[in-house]
C-alpha cells in the first residue's frame, strides 16, 4: 500500500462488529468488546469516553494490532489489520497512559530508537527531533538526561514527540493526560490540538475526561462494559439525550455517572483478588 493509496482512503479507521473476550477461569469469560462498530474519517478526531475497565484499552490494542479480535473486522485506511498487521503498523502510532520508554536511556536515545523501528534513520530523525522538541517546548539541553529524571508530564510530551517523529496517519491516544498535573495536562492537550492542525493525522482519543473529549473531539462515543452505546458530536449527544452537559448524557445513556461506573468497575476488578 502506497502513501497515495492511503491518502485516498475515505476512512482512517473502520470497525465492524468487533468482539473480544478473555478467559478468566475454565468456561468463564469476560467480554472486553461486544460488537463494536465505529468509523473515524480521514482528518477526524473521535473520542471514546468510558470508565476504567470499559474496554477502551482493549479497543486501542485491537486497532494497534497488539490483540487479535475474536470476530469482526478492523480496517485501517482500508487495510485489514488482522490479515496485514505490518502494513497497518506503518501508518499508525500510539501514545498510552504509561509513557513506555527505556527509563535509563535519554529522551534522544529513546527517540532515535523509536524512529528506527519505523524505518527513519538517524540522519533523518535528528533534525526532526530538534524541531519537534522545540515545538513542544522541551529544553534541548535535557535530551541527554535519562527518562527517569523527567517528570511524568515531560515524559508524556516525549511520547507524543516519538509518535510525531514517524508521521502517523492514524494516531491512537489512550488516556494520554491521565495522572498529569493540570499544567502538563493543558500542555499535552495543546499538543494534541496542534497535531490535528499541523499533521495529516486522524485521531482516536480514549479518555475518561469529558471536558477533554468535548474540547478535542469532533465526535464522541460512550463505551461501557465493552459496548459502544452512543456515538455522535457533543451537540448531537446532548440533543439526543435532551441534556445540557456531557455528564448528564453519560448518566442518561448508562444509567450511572462516570465516577460511579468507575467505582463499580474497580470493585469488580478487586473482587477476585479478595477471594
Amino acid at each position: 500500500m502506497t502513501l497515495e493509496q492511503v491518502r485516498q482512503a475515505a476512512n482512517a479507521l473502520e470497525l465492524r462488529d468487533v468482539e473480544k473476550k478473555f478467559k478468566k477461569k475454565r468456561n468463564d469469560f469476560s467480554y472486553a468488546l461486544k460488537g463494536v462498530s465505529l468509523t473515524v474519517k480521514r482528518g477526524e478526531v473521535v473520542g471514546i469516553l468510558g470508565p476504567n475497565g470499559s474496554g477502551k484499552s482493549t479497543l486501542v490494542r485491537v486497532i494497534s494490532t497488539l490483540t487479535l479480535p475474536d470476530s469482526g473486522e478492523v480496517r485501517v485506511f482500508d487495510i485489514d489489520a488482522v490479515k496485514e498487521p505490518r502494513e497497518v503498523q506503518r501508518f499508525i502510532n500510539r501514545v498510552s497512559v504509561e509513557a513506555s520508554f527505556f527509563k535509563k536511556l535519554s529522551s534522544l536515545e529513546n527517540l532515535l530508537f523509536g524512529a528506527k523501528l519505523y524505518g527513519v534513520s538517524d540522519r533523518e530523525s535528528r533534525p526532526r527531533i530538534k524541531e519537534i522538541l522545540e515545538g513542544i517546548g522541551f529544553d534541548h539541553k535535557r535530551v541527554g538526561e535519562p527518562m527517569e529524571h523527567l517528570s511524568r508530564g515531560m515524559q508524556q510530551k516525549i511520547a507524543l514527540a516519538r509518535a510525531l517523529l514517524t508521521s502517523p496517519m492514524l494516531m491512537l491516544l489512550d488516556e494520554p493526560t491521565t495522572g498529569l498535573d493540570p499544567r502538563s495536562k493543558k500542555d499535552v492537550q495543546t499538543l494534541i490540538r496542534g497535531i490535528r492542525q499541523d499533521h495529516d493525522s486522524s485521531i482516536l482519543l480514549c479518555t475518561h475526561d469529558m471536558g477533554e473529549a468535548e474540547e478535542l473531539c469532533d465526535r464522541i462515543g460512550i463505551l461501557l462494559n465493552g459496548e459502544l452505546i452512543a456515538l455522535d458530536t457533543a451537540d448531537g449527544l446532548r440533543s439526543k439525550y435532551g441534556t445540557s452537559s456531557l455528564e448528564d448524557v453519560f448518566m442518561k445513556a448508562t444509567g450511572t455517572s462516570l465516577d460511579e461506573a468507575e467505582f463499580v468497575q474497580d470493585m469488580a476488578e478487586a473482587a477476585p483478588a479478595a477471594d
Partner: protein
Amino acid sequence: MQITHSQLDKPGWMREIIAIWGYAQRNYFLTKRYFWWEVVWLVYSTMNALTIGFIGVGFGTTSEEAAKVTTFLLIGTLLWSYLSMIFDLLSETVSWERWEGTIEYTFMSPASRTAQLVGMGIYAVLYGIVRMIIMLGAISLFFDMSLGNANYGAALGILAICSISLVGFGMVAAVMPLLSPEKGQQVTSIFTAVLLLISGIYYSIDVLPGWMQPLANISPVYYALNGIRNALLEGATFTSQWENIWPLLIMGLIFPPLGLWLFKKGEWFAKKTGRLKRSG
C-alpha cells in the same frame, strides 16, 4: 512543523536494515547506561574463570599436565561465558521489554521480528567477543596456558558457526516468556542449566551417565567446545574437524528459522490471549 513521510516511501528491506541497526544501537546505549553493572558482571565472570583455572593448577601432577588441565578448563569457562551470554541476551528479548514497559510499543511497530532478533543477535555476538577478549587478557596474566600449537583461525571459524546456532537456540527459548509471562523466563534458565550440564564445559561428556551422554548431541556448545579445544590444544585445522562442523552447520541452518517460526507462533498466541502486555 514540517510533515514528512519519507520512511513510507522506502523499500521494505531498507526499513528492516534501519530497524536491525536500531536494535543493536539501543542495546549499545543500554550497555553504556548500565556500564558499572556490566563491569561488576565482567569482574565476577573473570574471578569465576580464575577460580576454575586454579582448580586446574591444583590437579596437575606436573607443570605440563597442570597447564593442559588449566587450559582445558579455561577454554570451557571462556566459551561458556561467551555462548551463555548470547543465549541469555536472545532469550531475554521479551522479558526485558516487558520489564522496561516497552513491549507494546516494540510489538506494534512495523519492524519485523526477524529484524528484532537479528539486531539483538548481532549485538550479543559483538559484545560477547569484546567481553571474552577482556577476560582472556586478564586470565593470561595468571596462567601459563598450553597454547603453543594453537590454531586460532580454526578456533575462530568454529566459534563463528556456533554463534549462529546459539542465536537460533536463543530465539527458540525467547518464545517462552510470550507463552507464560510469569514463568517463561524461569524456563529459559532451565535451558541454560541443561546446556551447562550436558555440553562438557568443565569435563569430558564421557564422565556423564550413559543415558545422559547422547543429550550432548543436540547441544551446539558441545561441538563448539570439541572443535575449539582441538584447535587450541592440538592445533587441529578447520577442515580436519568436519565431525564437529557439520552438526554446527545443520544447527545453524535449522535453529534460526525454527526460532523465528516459533517466536511468530508465540506472538500470535500472546495476541490472541491478551498476554502481550507490559505487565505479567
